[in-house]
């Protein structure tokens, strides 16, 4: 009896699912860095409006944008979160699949910090060159480019503790990795003179840049493909471990982690907003314009996200660790006008 009932209920559900397909909720996917902020906004959006709470999935910037570019229609996502700007190639893929009008929304900035165990060795001040010397695949030693054989931090910088090198860096599918490479490894490579030496050794500039971003593969540097919780667990288990975290994550775990300065600047929302702290990046989400007016609440969600009450300096997003964008008003205008990517600003 009950089996029959559930079978018929299932049949009804299947029929109505295909006939009344109108999705009533906004569907979001993408960067795990933006996910916390998006979830705060989604919850508040559901609490404060009559629209249902949007569904926010994770998976990384690239996978989010890939799903975003799959096409237009209710079985594709409406919004892609990204911790980096969309690439030319991705815009082209989007256009091929019919996703031509994309609205880019910058929500604020995120700082990337280097932190170690609270009770571990004194890792309190780093330069990009230290990080490069520690985990670059090839480094400059005695005027020559050699395979990196450093085992202790004090080998190349006497100010750093004599502790074994063990770094936990974001894996390549993370948007954070790109910022880490650009703002730390590349800068460090130039600062140590390794890049110059590579070019002098006959490499083209592009090849030298690529070589600078190579990370040693002998276990001193570990790619973390999961999220910051995994990095935290690794740091917990390794006194000498140094992890790469988002500012918000670090601020939620100050009792377990101690943060290091970069180029002498301590990472705080203030130093990141002013641009003094060097390792930061903008966070975005992308809206499919074709879905506005089709999916109820999509434009309202976008506007709600970047309203002063939420993304402003005293809003809940800033309270969680987002560095709010000084040019928020301009972004609000972009969304209100539904100005798409590529259109004249």
């Amino acid at each position, binding site marked *: 009896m009950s089996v029959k009932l559930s079978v018929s209920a299932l049949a009804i*559900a299947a029929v109505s699912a295909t006939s009344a397909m109108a999705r009533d909720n906004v569907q979001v996917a993408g960067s795990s860095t933006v996910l916390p902020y998006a979830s705060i906004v989604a919850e508040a959006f559901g609490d404060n409006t009559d629209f249902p709470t949007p569904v*926010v999935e994770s998976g990384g910037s690239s996978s989010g944008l890939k799903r975003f570019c799959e096409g237009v229609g209710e079985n594709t996502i409406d919004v892609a979160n990204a911790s980096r700007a969309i690439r030319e190639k991705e815009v082209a893929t989007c256009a091929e699949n019919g996703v031509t009008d994309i609205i880019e929304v910058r929500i604020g900035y995120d700082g990337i910090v280097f932190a170690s165990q609270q009770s571990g060795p004194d890792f309190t001040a780093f330069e990009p060159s230290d990080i490069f010397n520690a985990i670059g695949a090839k480094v400059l030693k005695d005027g020559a480019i050699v395979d990196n054989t450093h085992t202790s931090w004090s080998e190349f910088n006497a100010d750093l503790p004599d502790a074994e090198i063990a770094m936990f860096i974001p894996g390549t599918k993370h948007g954070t990795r790109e910022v880490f490479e650009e703002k730390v490894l590349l800068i460090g490579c130039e600062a140590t003179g390794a890049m110059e030496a590579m070019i002098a050794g006959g490499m083209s500039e592009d090849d030298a840049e690529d070589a600078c971003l190579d990370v040693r593969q002998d276990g001193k540097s570990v790619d973390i493909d999961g999220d910051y919780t995994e990095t935290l667990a690794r740091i917990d288990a390794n006194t000498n471990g140094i992890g790469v975290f988002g500012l918000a994550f670090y601020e939620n775990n100050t009792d377990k982690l101690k943060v290091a300065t970069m180029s002498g600047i301590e990472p705080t929302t203030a130093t990141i907003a002013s641009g003094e702290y060097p390792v930061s990046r903008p966070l975005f989400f992308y809206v499919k314009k074709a879905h506005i007016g089709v999916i109820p609440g999509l434009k309202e969600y976008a506007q*709600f996200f970047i309203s002063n009450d939420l993304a402003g300096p005293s809003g809940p997003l800033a309270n969680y660790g987002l560095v709010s964008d000084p040019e928020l008003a301009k972004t609000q205008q972009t969304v209100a006008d539904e100005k798409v990517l590529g259109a004249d600003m």
Partner: protein
Amino acid sequence: MTDASMNSVPVKGSLTTLDARTKKRNAAEKRFKAYGLVAIMIGLFFLVVLAVSILRSGIPAFTQAEVRVEFTLTQAQFDEAESQMLKTKAYENLFIAALQSQLEERSLDVTFDPAAIERLLGKTGSTIREYFRDSPDQIGSTVTFNLAASSRVDGYFKGRVSRDTVVDSRFLKVTDLDLVDALVDAGIVVTAFNWNFLTGSDSGVDNPGGAGIGVSVIGSFFMMLVVLALSLPIGVAASIYLEEFAPQNWFTDLIEVNISNLAAVPSIVFGILGLAVFIQFMHLPQSAPLVGGLVLTLMTLPTIIISTRASLKSVPPSIREAALGVGASKMQTVFHHVLPLAAPGILTGTIIGLAQALGETAPLLLIGMVGFIARAYPEGVVSGFIDPNSAMPAQIYTWASRADPGFYEKAWGGIIILLMFLLTMNIIAIILRRRFERRW
């Protein structure tokens, strides 16, 4: 005489004293028993370690620090708050103001300001708004609210935050703990059973106090309905055909091999299949328990087919022969005699297959059931199948990856609840087997 017999029979030893070889054999047996005991002990030890660590980390999730305050909302305040964009924040501010004036009346000997009170409270706005919107007749009268304290204050009660390790942050100042202590003495901050954890839905990352597993339990329930309604009839029909009716040829052999192979396919593969077939091709909704159930059905089918075939095989041929002998048709034989005798085995296999499906996360990852999905309870059966929802293991996974330590605790609490469901299902399977199984 005695001498002669002693000389003629070579004495190797007596029955009561053991010779070297026997001793060796006995020792080997003893050693083997010891190895077995040690193996069991190691297994038990890890089981105990696992159970203790799950319980120790998870039990705090079931209690929560709450702020108990009497609160009156006037019609004017209600209208004012409802006219704002961020309505919940407006309610929160009203509540903070009310709490502050009450504390001032009590003249606590601790200094505090609205910011400190705000740091002590969790996200209270949505609870208050929901309450007054559902019962507008309460506007103007005094209502006692029990609202979740902030994650840090909650942690202070559970030992996650201690005075030794706490450092000033915008989430909590060290001086706030003095205020908390004073409020505990005044009976305003209390620890209570966290019903919201059992009944609520997911909440934003800055609101661990509002997170609950209830809605995702419903999501899991609807998925299991789909799995049961599809995989049991399909699985049993397929096994009966293969076992009782199908001719033995290369084609049925091929099917058999494939079923066994399918049982060993990693579950994430079914997720990819679900994404491609159900969402992209059939255009079923994303994040829906219906799709989750369909995917898990594919995963459970081989388990059910294999266990059903095993229990059909274990029915002795004499039963079939006797039925056929008194003139029953093949179909009557199967449905009147073989199937009822095999039923306990089939049910056990089904329940174990369901339990396996209940704990599965990987395939759900690809069809959008893992992430931030905080919906209200579904309205009715159809909405339960097609509205976005999470599932228990997916919810646990989501919580475990959040920054706030309060969510980590919730994840362990969720594991306890999931394990209770699994244990219950397994116990039902054991009881069914014990009560109805017949041995020949």
